[in-house]
């Protein structure tokens, strides 16, 4: 299992039974904490259209919880989880979030995936003072005492990738594509501002959006063939990707010659698209299953052992795995399960056992993390091409990009 290879974690002092702090001391607000157990919630869609994406997150969170329990739990207490199904339906997310906080008194909740589901539960977490660990890369423009964002916010994911493609590929013209909702639109807004204001002599030659679930991309592919952009910048999500990449290939656009940079296709999506249809495309995010570091070499086999050899691990799955660990480390730093103390102790918490390498929580409750560019291979994996030298600072309200 992964424990042996997570040296940073196993070196942490393990509380023996004598050290376990009294429940009355670590839980002053009536959370579901007993002398031997602490309850957390898992809130993702396991049914409906989002199930295919969110299942990986559920699996990663369960793995992390099992590993934490095997290592002695949190403040000497085993983690027990209550899983609820958001059913790909935003009001259901709100209902279940309320249940987890009000009924079950969960000390923390790992959950949500889409921005819409997070927006639906955010007022609930703020009203009932809960703690949400949210794993998806997202559009930013948000910051809450009650949320830790373990995925990248938009500027982290976008700016480094654009700089890289501009420098190494000499790219000057960009065609922006996206699914029609808040994340792709905000991301492309940031991308456009960066291209036009910060990259010398670069321009955006087109920007288009498609309804979620759209499968008709032929007209935009024709426009791309006419305008011949140096880079296709694609933020198409979910099932639409399958149609988009197949139609690109069918239209004769060879991704080994035409640079395509995406921030929305992880290994999970390639599973559906088919590696041969997307080979050669570049993706910019913070984690690839193929990362070569000791943490990841322990994480991937542990994940596969628990969930089957065929599972693939994408960026969000890894970010979801960080949630329970960051919460454990924060609780131990705060020496309390109280939400206010956990929220206050979060900035500065670092997780050296992260499969992506190393992460640290910023004052604004987002993570410092490295941004990486990978190239898709025919076998469905990404090969790491570039990573930023330093951790990239999260900036959910970027000046000059709004």
């Amino acid at each position: 299992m992964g424990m042996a290879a997570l040296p940073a974690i196993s070196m942490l002092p393990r509380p023996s039974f004598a050290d376990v702090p009294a429940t009355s001391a670590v839980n002053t607000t009536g959370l579901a904490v007993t002398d031997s157990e602490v309850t957390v919630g898992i809130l993702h869609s396991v049914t409906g259209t989002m199930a295919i994406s969110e299942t990986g997150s559920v699996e990663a969170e369960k793995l992390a919880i099992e590993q934490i329990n095997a290592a002695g739990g949190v403040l000497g207490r085993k983690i027990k989880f209550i899983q609820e199904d958001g059913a790909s339906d935003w009001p259901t997310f709100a209902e279940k979030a309320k249940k987890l906080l009000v009924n079950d008194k969960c000390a923390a909740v790992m959950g949500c995936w889409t921005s819409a589901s997070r927006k639906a539960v955010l007022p609930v977490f703020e009203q009932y003072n809960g703690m949400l660990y949210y794993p998806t890369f997202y559009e930013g423009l948000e910051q809450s005492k009650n949320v830790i964002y373990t995925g990248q916010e938009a500027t982290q994911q976008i700016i480094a990738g654009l700089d890289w493609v501009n420098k190494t590929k000499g790219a000057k013209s960009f065609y922006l594509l996206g699914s029609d909702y808040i994340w792709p639109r905000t991301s492309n807004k940031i991308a456009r501002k960066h291209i036009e204001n910060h990259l010398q002599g670069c321009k955006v030659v087109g920007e288009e959006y498609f309804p979620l679930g759209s499968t008709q991309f032929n007209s935009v592919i024709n426009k791309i063939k006419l305008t011949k952009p140096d880079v296709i910048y694609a933020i198409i999500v979910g099932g639409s990707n399958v149609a988009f990449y197949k139609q690109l290939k069918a239209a004769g656009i060879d991704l080994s010659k035409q640079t395509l940079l995406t921030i929305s296709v992880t290994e999970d999506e390639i599973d559906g698209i088919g590696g041969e249809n997307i080979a050669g495309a570049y993706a910019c995010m913070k984690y690839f299953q193929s990362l070569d570091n000791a943490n990841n070499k322990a994480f991937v086999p542990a994940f596969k052992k628990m969930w089957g050899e065929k599972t693939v691990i994408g960026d969000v799955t890894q970010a979801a795995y960080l949630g329970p660990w960051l919460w454990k480390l924060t609780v131990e730093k705060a020496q309390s399960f109280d939400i206010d103390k956990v929220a206050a102790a979060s900035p500065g918490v670092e997780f050296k056992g992260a499969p992506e390498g190393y992460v640290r929580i910023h004052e604004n409750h987002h993570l410092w993390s490295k941004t990486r560019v990978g190239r898709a291979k025919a076998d469905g994996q990404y090969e790491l091409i570039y990573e930023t030298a330093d951790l990239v600072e999260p900036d959910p309200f970027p000046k000059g990009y709004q």
Partner: protein
Amino acid sequence: MIINSRFFNRSELVGFLALALLLFLVLPLSLDIFRLNLVAKYLTYAFVGIGLVLCWGYGGILSLGQGVFFGLGGYCMAMYLKLEASSVANTKIQSTPGIPDFMDWNQLTSLPFFWKPFHSFPVALIAIIVVPAIFSFIIGAAMFKRRVGGVYFAIITQAIAAIMTILIVGQQGYTGGINGITDLRTLHGWDIRTDHAKYILYFVEVVLLFGCIVAAQFIRLTKLGRILVAMREQEDRVRFSGYSVANFKIFAFCAAAVFAAIGGAMFTLEVGFMSPSFVGIVPSIEMVIYTAVGGRMSIFGAVWGALLVNFAKTSLSESFPQLWLFGLGALFIAVVLAFPNGLSGIWADHVQPRIDRLLASRKPKPAAGYVADGAPAE
């Protein structure tokens, strides 16, 4: 006018009192505020159900687009609440303070003209009723005057539901897109998120629900209600008798739309947001299912159907997060196959006769009284 001597016959009165007892006393006393708020959410669908009983059960007009009206009512309420939550002080972090956050994210720099009236609470309240009424009138007039009915009408309403969703999702700068309108806080300065407010909202909603029940019952008992039933059975005969079938249909459709809109507005208040996921085809069909399960001929049945199906949905999904949809699907199929008239059909066919027999054996009384009193055989 042929009106029954009494507003409710005896079994309806029992149903009315039982429901009143349950909603006014039993549930508020036995449930904590979290569960009571869930019940309030379920009851918002009961408004739609009552409308569907009138329009589908009595009038024979199956609408698969009630989500549109539910959504219109909900959005009208949400627009008012969102403007109130987007005061300049609350939104000073934005590039343009004072407009809703999603507009700012979509680079809008001023409030669109159709949002402006929603600064006013009375206008919002009127809009909740009037907007869906006008919209349903236009659809109804366009369809029924041309004698489009039955399956064709159902398909068209479904298409309208799809169009509405695409419109809302596509125009996210103006509507909040797929996220919907979220983070609603106060109603006319009154915080709707506190437990106290949730209790008050619950009772307001139940009172409104009974208002709708009485209104629906009234419509049913007037000549209008009789004509609706006649139309459902023999549309041509009604037309040959000199009635304007189209106008009656339009009325029933508009009434159902207004009921749905009231439900939608209450939904926004109870849940604290509105999103296109209540407008589309799937929620619209779900609303029809609640009514079918409850019994499309019974106003009370619709309320019970909305309550029970949603309750089953919540409890099944809490117990079996990965399997609950199958269980729910099986439940629908079983009810519709075995009991085409839904729960109220089971009650009328199996439970009611036994109670009557029990009462009759205890206190002999001529059975004729019931027959004359009972609901017309529908």
